[in-house]
């Protein structure tokens, strides 16, 4: 065979081989495609569909909180926010940088978002900013085309029209914690913008307020951008809850408190409805519900006025003289004394080698119950406590609501402490002695009560019934069983309390109501926060005004009005307010004035605020003058030094 023929033969054979191999591969590809399209087709169609359609949970609108007249205390304000899907965004930092040009994003917030992104499940999204305003929202929508993974959203943010005054009662909302999600494994907890109650009523009633989420099926592209809405299932808003609080009253009292550290509790004597549960200073719940700035948090923690502590329910104070009402009722109820029993006060009360004192150096002379309360005579109550015995006093305290935990929709209520011999033995391992009896008699010692408990005590004394406080205004008005104290004896105690404010020699006469036909009754208290040594007592006890703020006595007041037919009871604690009569009683006076004669209360408040403003301005002016004076002196000193150097140029 010729060379050419052989070459052609070889070529033909090999071309056949190669062409055959190619044909086989082609058939293989066709089979593969048929496999993908026909056998796996359904699964892959589903995959394409789930690519295209994304189901997004719509966080439910949180239930409203209303005051007892239906005015909103917590509502949902429509707002615009930004979410980021980190898995789509790619370079999250660069994305945040670009968002940051339109929406102010602090470095701190960015760091937080980056940290959150690390623990996020794949395809999860993060809320970068809430409430960015319409302008920023519109600007963001324009830039969206080349911002992968950024989703502008329309949402609601929680808004508290009452502001700081209601912060401790209502609490605030925030994103659920990781632990909360792990506990329930509810997908809703992963939805950005979903909020749970973090404190106060918001936390206690969280499940009722939460509602059920809606769902949106939307067509999205690979960048997570929503192209069109397919179907929407509306969310189910949470339950609207009506609270017993009175927004105007609490507002008014908050303004009245100003920048003091105080709590005021007002309670309806008939129903137990809490009309005011004020604790100041507090924080802005609107700010807390967005994102708590770390710096603000540190500042609040460091503040000696303790703005993070809900003082009305969790603050525990030595009740001081307000507890004398308990001592008196214990003696009366146990039959150890009658209202007419007289004790002679010579200012000194020696027992077993020690001497206890009355606050009046000359003594009160012979006093019976009514005058003893009005003048707050220590010696009288020393005697009564010894007659009744420590167990009876402790039992009466508990009967009146002290040391009790109430069933209120507020987390971590503090019961407080009412000491008795068994408790002392158990806690400190020592027997009860007569000193303990005497200390307890005038509300000192190991007694610790919350302002809420004091208000309940006042309401129970005022109404003669076992009033139970409530914060929810739903349900019928309850009826309470009577106190185990004879009504006529209670009447004498109430008369004594009325004398405190209205009678001669009463300790809180300056706080008498100026509302015609309505009189307030009450009892002042002053609780020491420091030890007074025997040496100081000999020299003369230092006056509160000369002490630094944090060593001054707490000022307390419990009361009710009208004194003849009580409708509301009140408890006021002003931390380091020095005097119950001067610091605490005026707040109770303001509360009752507001309830019975609102225009007068508002006029008085306006005067007070004008006065505060005038003083603030005067202080500022003084500070400016002092600064100018200091600057002048410094300049003079510098000028004197300057003369030693080269003289001023002509």
């Amino acid at each position, binding site marked *: 065979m010729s060379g050419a023929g052989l070459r052609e033969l070889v070529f033909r054979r090999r071309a056949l081989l190669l062409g055959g191999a190619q044909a086989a591969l082609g058939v293989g590809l066709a089979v593969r*495609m048929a496999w993908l399209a026909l056998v796996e087709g359904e699964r892959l169609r589903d995959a394409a569909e789930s690519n295209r359609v994304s189901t997004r949970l719509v966080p439910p609108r949180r239930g409203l909180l209303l005051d007892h007249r239906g005015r909103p205390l917590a509502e949902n304000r429509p707002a615009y926010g930004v979410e980021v899907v980190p898995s789509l965004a790619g370079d999250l930092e660069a994305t945040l940088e670009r968002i940051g040009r339109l929406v102010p994003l602090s470095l701190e917030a960015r760091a937080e978002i980056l940290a959150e992104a690390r623990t996020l499940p794949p395809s999860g999204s993060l809320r970068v900013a809430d409430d960015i305003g319409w302008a920023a929202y519109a600007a963001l929508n324009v830039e969206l085309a080349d911002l992968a993974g950024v989703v502008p959203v329309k949402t609601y943010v929680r808004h508290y029209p009452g502001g700081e005054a209601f912060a401790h009662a209502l609490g605030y909302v925030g994103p659920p914690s990781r632990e909360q999600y792990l506990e329930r494994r509810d997908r809703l907890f992963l939805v950005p913008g979903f909020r749970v109650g973090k404190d106060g009523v918001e936390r206690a009633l969280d499940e009722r307020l939460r509602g059920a989420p809606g769902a949106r099926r939307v067509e999205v592209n690979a960048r997570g951008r929503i192209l069109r809405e397919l179907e929407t299932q509306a969310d189910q808003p949470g339950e609207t809850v009506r609270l017993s609080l009175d927004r105007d009253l609490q507002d008014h009292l908050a303004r009245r408190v100003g920048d003091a550290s105080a709590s005021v509790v007002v309670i309806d004597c008939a129903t137990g409805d809490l009309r005011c549960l004020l604790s100041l200073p507090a924080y802005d719940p609107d700010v807390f519900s967005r994102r708590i700035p770390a710096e603000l948090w540190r500042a609040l923690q460091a503040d000696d006025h303790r703005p993070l502590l809900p003082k009305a329910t969790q603050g525990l104070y030595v009740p001081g003289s307000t507890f004398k009402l308990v001592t008196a009722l214990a003696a009366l109820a146990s039959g150890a004394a009658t209202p007419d029993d007289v004790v002679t006060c010579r200012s000194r009360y020696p027992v077993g080698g020690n001497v206890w004192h009355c606050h009046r150096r000359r003594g009160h002379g012979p006093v019976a119950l009514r005058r003893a309360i009005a003048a707050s005579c220590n010696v009288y109550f020393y005697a009564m406590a010894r007659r009744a015995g420590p167990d009876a006093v402790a039992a009466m305290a508990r009967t009146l609501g002290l040391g009790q935990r109430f069933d209120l929709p507020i987390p971590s209520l503090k019961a407080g402490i009412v000491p008795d011999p068994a408790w002392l033995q158990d806690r400190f391992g020592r027997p009860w002695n007569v000193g303990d009896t005497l200390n307890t008699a005038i509300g000192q010692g190991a007694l610790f009560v919350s302002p809420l408990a004091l208000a309940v005590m006042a309401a129970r004394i005022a109404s003669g019934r076992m009033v139970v406080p409530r914060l929810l205004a739903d349900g019928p008005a309850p009826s309470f069983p009577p106190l185990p104290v004879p009504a006529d004896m209670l009447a004498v105690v109430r008369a004594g309390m009325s004398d405190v404010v209205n009678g001669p020699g009463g300790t809180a006469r300056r706080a008498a109501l100026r509302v015609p036909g309505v009189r307030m009754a009450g009892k002042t208290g002053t609780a020491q926060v420091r030890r007074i040594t025997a040496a100081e007592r000999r020299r003369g006890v230092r006056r509160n005004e000369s002490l630094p703020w944090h060593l001054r006595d707490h000022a307390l007041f419990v009361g009710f009005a009208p004194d003849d037919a009580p409708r509301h009871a009140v408890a006021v604690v002003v931390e380091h307010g020095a005097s119950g009569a001067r610091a605490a009683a005026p707040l109770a006076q303001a509360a009752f004035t507001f309830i019975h004669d609102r225009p007068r209360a508002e006029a008085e408040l306006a005067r007070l605020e004008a006065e505060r403003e005038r003083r603030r301005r005067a202080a500022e002016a003084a500070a400016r003058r002092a600064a100018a004076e200091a600057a002048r002196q410094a300049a003079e000193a510098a000028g004197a030094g300057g003369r030693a150097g080269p003289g001023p140029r002509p």
Partner: protein
Amino acid sequence: MIGPFHLSARWPQRLLAQDWRIVALVLAIGLFGCVVLYSAAGGRLQPWALPHALRLLAFTPLMVMMALVPSRTWAALAAPGYALVLMALLAVEAVGAFGGGAQRWLDLGPVRLQPSELMKLVLVLFLARLFHFLPLGYLDRAVGLWRPVAATLVPVALVLLQPDLGTALTLLAGGAGVMFLAGVPPVVFLVPTALGLVSLPLVYRLLHDYQQRRIDIFLDPSLDPLGAGYHITQARIAIGSGGAFGKGFLEGSQSHLLFLPEPHTDFVFATMAEEWGLAGGLLLMAAYALLLAWGWGVARRAADSFARLAAGGLVVTIFLYVAINLMMVMGLAPVVGLPLPLMSYGGSAMLTVMLAVGILLGIDRESRWPRGGLGS
């Protein structure tokens, strides 16, 4: 005697003697590409469909002109052409080395020349010429084989440096195809293949990080469902979700909603399959098969050894394009970045394939109308 660079005065007859059915087939595939690109752009002519059509229109006369060139002219041009393209490849290397970063083309003002694409054609022609003049007895001897082997490996090495694994592999396979068709004993292929398989782990370690990753992810796409494995997964979803007859023109959600990466270039087949289904895919594959089968026929009928080998080598080159792209898109090969000729947006592959078809058309005409040739 008519010189190799002299076009015969009888060119109108030559023009009419083309197999116009093949020109029509090529144009049909290209126009189907336009339709798919029109849909990929969301039902718009810009930015892909119209330029694609214009390119097709511009390259068609070029293809027909190639067909007018007699095969001996190609034989005469093979060696200098190979040398020229090799120098261009070196130039690309140099520009890349000095300019920093990998580069694959030479910027010649208005034209961007990608020498590695041209090399695919020139290598086939040059090898065909080498073997044409190689006596049969030298096919299994080093003294005869070193030149074709070196002629293949040098450009492969240069392209590998760029680095462009896909093109390097097609060059290597194209060269090997011509050698195989020329009658080089199988053992010459088997030994390096075996050696290559054994040294695969070593080669793997020499690869760039991103190339290693592509291979890892090809073996297990779930390694990186949102990154590189995303391409593979989304392409598979696009093809499979098309079902038997597709979702319909302009209805492909995978491509329109951007889930499919590069829906207009390397993954254009997936874009097509989503909307036209298995039916469209089989039709397109049949069209390519027809072209290749015709190519094999041309090679078989070719008048001399050079034309035979050149035709066979060009068919192998076209096949490699199509096969590697389809395997990649269907998840049977790693993502190497090769377009589907005539369908994918982009000029290089289209030009290469249309030039190849042009040369094939010329060889076909010559075999039916024998005149000249190199003499055998």
